[in-house]
């Protein structure tokens, strides 16, 4: 893999990671608040958590492959910073949600 292709796929994987982080947070928080979503995940994937993981893998793979062929790789650094921010916001949002949920504030 030459340097340009490597940078393209680095940017693509970072964008894929951003999408996966956002998707996991949305499926987790919305799934707790809106029972039909969690039920659909359970019924389709046998367990809601397996469903979230499977959908995140699919989203990450598709976005990475698609972006790997269309992006230039010039914004790989920027994409990595956004991937860091997305992962941190996702982690804080999910943890914060479960704390509030435990105290029945949401």
């Amino acid at each position, binding site marked *: 893999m030459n340097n340009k292709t*490597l940078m393209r796929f680095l940017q693509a994987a970072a964008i*894929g990671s951003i999408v996966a982080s956002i998707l996991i947070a949305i499926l987790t928080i919305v799934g707790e608040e809106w029972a039909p979503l969690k039920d659909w995940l359970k019924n389709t994937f046998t367990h809601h958590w397996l469903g979230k993981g499977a959908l995140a893998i699919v989203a990450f793979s598709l976005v990475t492959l698609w972006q790997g062929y269309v992006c230039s790789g010039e914004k790989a650094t920027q994409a990595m910073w956004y991937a*860091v921010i997305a992962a941190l916001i996702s982690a804080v949002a*999910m943890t914060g949600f479960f704390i509030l949920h435990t105290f029945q504030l949401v």
Partner: protein
Amino acid sequence: MSQFLATALVLHVVLGLIGLGAIHLTFMQVIRKQPPWGIVVKAAWIAFFGFLLSWMTGAYYYVVHYGVVVKPLIVSGEFPWAHQVFMEAKEHVFLLIPFLTVVALFAVYALRENENPALKSAASALIATALVLGILVAAAGVIISGGVR
């Protein structure tokens, strides 16, 4: 708990710790002035496979045993928050880590070819994020284990 489930649980913990150790090694080597790329690349691969296999073994234990046997014990016990906060957060935050390790893999290969300082800063931050989330997930695992007792 069957021998197979016990093995899955032990493997989940051990592989997760291997992943954590490897991502720590990756971080410590990447931030050096002249990183030893051979070690960095190997450590990044070990971190990726460690977290991936920890996910798979943990998933089996979690779906087959934890939700059916352990969760009701914790929720009806003295420390229900061990599940309601720590397990719920742990199982979902964990999902973020393998994707970060894939990006880290591409990043170390890119850095090996092109030691750009801005790229190195972003890659170090990304690897550090995977490391910190991994440490928090491991710490939550210890709290959850304590919550069963």
